[in-house]
């Protein structure tokens, strides 16, 4: 492909300023803006939402959007303000997904590092378990967990973590395998560095990029999983401001009040898309080898 590569490229340019570097990175501004808005809503939900998301207002039941001055996106069957519930829903979403994905990342990374570095039967055993979890529909695993532990936010968080760690473990293991036999690791071994130290100082830094990309790609999946579990009535309680629950509530009034189900679904779609696009960008940015046409 490349015709003739010069033997030596002399780069006399001054190191790029941070302004230039941001420009060169071609940051995906639209997804970033969307995500910042969501985080802002989650943090300041109390301040910016026009109503209390749990407050019933029986005089203003099932108001259509843009009809009355008070309720921009309408109200549900008990007169709760849809916009306020959406804003508080972003907080609920972050509260459920963030801790569970952090646990999944920690557990998955540990398993992946140990599995990849120790090899042999430890690797085989851990990878069979990983495959069992990975190859298994995540809602099913979550259902199983919720069956035995009961419904509720905590159990949904456990279920999410229990289904998501496997992907991290698989990916990290692959990365570890690819660097395990490189010279710097072998030298460290000869030098007598302890296995724990090798994993931490020499292997872990090499998997951070993969970890970040996988995280940003997984968040979308986790949001969808959480919404599905809420929708199925396995997570939060009915009436809580969560997007999945709002859709479940809206489903019952679909023909009379379409807006109750429509808006939370739109928000989920937009947020998941933002995370996916951001993940794509991050992957291209961190790994130029993957920057291919398309």
């Amino acid at each position, binding site marked *: 492909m490349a015709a003739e590569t010069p033997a030596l490229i002399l780069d006399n340019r001054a190191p790029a300023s941070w302004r230039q570097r941001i420009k060169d990175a071609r940051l995906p501004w639209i997804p970033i803006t969307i995500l910042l808005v969501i985080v802002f809503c989650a943090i300041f939900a109390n301040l910016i939402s026009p109503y209390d998301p749990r407050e019933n207002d029986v005089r203003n039941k099932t108001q259509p959007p843009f009809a009355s001055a008070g309720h921009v996106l309408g109200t549900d069957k008990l007169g709760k303000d849809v916009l306020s519930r959406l804003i508080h829903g972003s907080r609920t979403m972050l509260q459920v997904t963030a801790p569970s994905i952090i646990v999944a990342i920690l557990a998955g990374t540990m398993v992946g590092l140990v599995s990849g570095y120790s090899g042999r039967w430890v690797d085989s055993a851990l990878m*069979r*378990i990983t*495959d*069992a979890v*990975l*190859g*298994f*529909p*995540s*809602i*099913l695993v979550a*259902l*199983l967990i*919720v*069956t*035995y*532990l009961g419904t509720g936010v905590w159990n949904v968080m456990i279920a999410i973590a229990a289904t998501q760690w496997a992907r991290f473990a698989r990916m990290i293991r692959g990365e570890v395998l690819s660097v395990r036999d490189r010279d710097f690791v072998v030298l460290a071994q000869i030098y007598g560095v302890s296995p724990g130290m090798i994993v931490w100082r020499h292997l872990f830094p090499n998997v951070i990029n993969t970890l970040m990309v996988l995280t940003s790609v997984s968040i*979308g999946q986790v949001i*969808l999983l959480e*919404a*599905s579990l809420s*929708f*199925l*009535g*396995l997570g939060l309680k009915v009436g809580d401001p969560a997007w*999945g629950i709002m*859709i479940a509530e*809206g*489903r019952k009034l*679909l*023909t009379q009040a*379409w807006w109750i*189900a*429509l808006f*939370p*679904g739109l928000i*989920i*779609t*937009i947020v*998941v*898309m933002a995370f*996916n*696009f951001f993940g794509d960008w991050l992957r291209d940015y961190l790994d130029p080898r993957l920057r*291919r*046409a*398309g």
Partner: protein
Amino acid sequence: MWQFIGIRVIQGIFTLLVISLLVFLATRLTGDPALVLLPPEASSKADYERVKKQLGLDKPLSTQYLIFLSGAVRGDFGLSIRDRRPTRDLLLERLPATLQLALAGMVLAIVIGVPLGILSAVKRDSFLDKGAKLFAVLGMAAPQFWVAIMLILLFGAILKVLPTYGREGPENFILPSFVLAWSIMAGITRLGRSSMLEVLDSDYVRFARIKGLKDGMVVWKHALRNALIPILTFSGISLAGLLNGAIVVEQVFAWPGLGRLMLDGVLQRNFPVVQAAVMASAFFYILTALIVDILYVYADPRIRH
């Protein structure tokens, strides 16, 4: 080749064993199965002892597991707590509906996704390419249950052209299988596009062009076959996603399949039914993954060695 298949079969069986062990232990770790499996109307101490003996809970754990396993092989996980029917009958009753739906979803995803991906590759950077990409990305990000509800609203309530629940005729398949298909279509379209681009750039396709073959012939005959290999693998991978979706989609469309059986089982804490449904879907998942792996080897002779 045979060695490869043998290894994969053994791995599959091993994975199933791991899952069965998890399912088995889950009931034992989270409470007394005798109490859980006790019918609500029977609650005396004698009943409890009888159930315990009947379930073999007085035997050591390893023996219990073997009994559980031998039942599992025959699809027998005991009686459903709710209607006292054998789980095996329930499984046989519900399984076809889910398999049909999953198959319809997969076929639809390939039938729409592959041509879309190929067209995007051939007409690269055109309006069609961008539109196809947006369509695929939307399908991946939109929650399936919400898409399902919105389709019900549009086609069922407003246009009144399609049935929105049940499983009477072929028209009942349209909405649920589309919802399933749309969510995995993104991967198929994207893969179809990128692998087609790669193949179109390869020497033998260029040679076919130099030979003077028509564009359509080159794309559909020479390039497509090779571009299909990654799509095949991806279809295997997306099976889990398909089953995932089936649980939600069956719920929304009142589809009498395994997913609803499982969800009802969870909400009613009907443990035997949940165990049966989980093991059945695990079995089918692993079986299909195995078949895809074998097909993969057939499709790409390079991996045989």
